[in-house]
């Protein structure tokens, strides 16, 4: 599924990065070590974390994007780093459970394994 469709259907706010990317699956976690260990390339990552390290993790794991939940905004340093490294950061007012529920309904059924 294309990230653009997801953004449109769930009315996500775009903070940075390229939105024309394929999404292979989804991964929800707030523990960076967990994402490093278990997320797959082109996964869409759902988290509450906003500090700069999320950009590094997304880059390392070649994720298709990060969705911040609960209306979280990326910190300034996070945003400038994301723009520099072309990491897609999005946000929504939904909580994790509901957002993932909707992504699941759209056909994203896991991390694509």
């Amino acid at each position, binding site marked *: 599924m294309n990230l653009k469709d997801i953004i449109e259907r769930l009315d996500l706010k775009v903070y940075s990065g390229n939105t024309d990317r394929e999404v292979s699956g989804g991964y929800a976690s707030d523990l960076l*070590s967990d994402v490093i260990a278990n997320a797959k390339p082109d996964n869409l990552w759902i988290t509450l*974390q*906003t500090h700069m390290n999320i950009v590094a993790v997304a880059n390392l794991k070649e994720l298709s994007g990060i969705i911040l939940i609960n209306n979280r905004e990326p*910190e300034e340093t996070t945003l400038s780093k994301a723009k520099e490294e072309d990491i897609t950061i999005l946000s929504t007012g939904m909580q994790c459970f509901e957002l993932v529920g909707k992504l699941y309904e759209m056909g994203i059924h896991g991390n694509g394994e």
Partner: protein
Amino acid sequence: MYNKDTSKTQELTYELKVKDAMDTDYITVNSSTTMKSLRDILKKKRILGVPVLDDGILVGIISIEDYVKCMENGRLDDIVGNIMTKDVISIFEDEPLVNAVRNFEKYHFTRFPVLTREDNKLVGIVSKIDTIKGILKKLEDAYEMNKESNKFPTRCLINELIADGTCLELKYFVEGKNFEKAGNASTRLKKSLKKLGISSQITRRITISTYEAEINIVSYTDNGEITARVNSDDITVIISDNGPGIEDVKQAMTPGYSNAPGWVRELGFGAGMGLPNMKKFSDEMNVDTVVGKGTTIKLVFKINE
């Protein structure tokens, strides 16, 4: 700041069961009733629809709309069984009323048959109006109870003691950097508040705030102290430590702002919600902090509603 009225409503919608709000004085027809006699029943009782029961078992539901359609198609001699909606959406009597509210929204029906869970027997009808009435009645009862007793056991005792001021003080010591023991003070406080008869609403707000404060002590300092003072019309919780202090309180109050070290984040904390949560769940909050000396946070929870 916390809004108590809405929370009370929340608690009530959870507590109320469908059977508390359903109408048990309902009319039924059976599937061999003719559409003509159905009209007389609906007209006489001034109702818009009835459940269809055969030998006590719910087999369908029929409404005035079905009657109108029959009239248009000249099928008034037909029997209810051939016209009724067989796929009935019902609800069990012991489900929370909030489920009925959800079903009204989901299916756009205004009434549902209520069944017993054991043998699927029809025991009532729940309508939107009944639901609202049920909630109002419960609110009224709660209000009356409050007015009459206006107390919990401790407050009675505190009020009876002769002094210019009385309070009950509970003290807890918190060991810094020991994550295994973090939460020990807050959960013991919770138990004590329950024993004192403080409502679960207020207890929840107090222990959530105290728990956040306790986690801060454990994350940033070597040790600290939590004191809860139960007064006659409020509970005041004072959390103090001799830690590094907070450099910029305004920044620390911003949801999402955090300078927590990585180990705290990996343990599930340090997302910059500690102070905002304390503020959210308390009625008054005061932060007194000196960099290099320590922090004292005072939280007030009013109980005199």
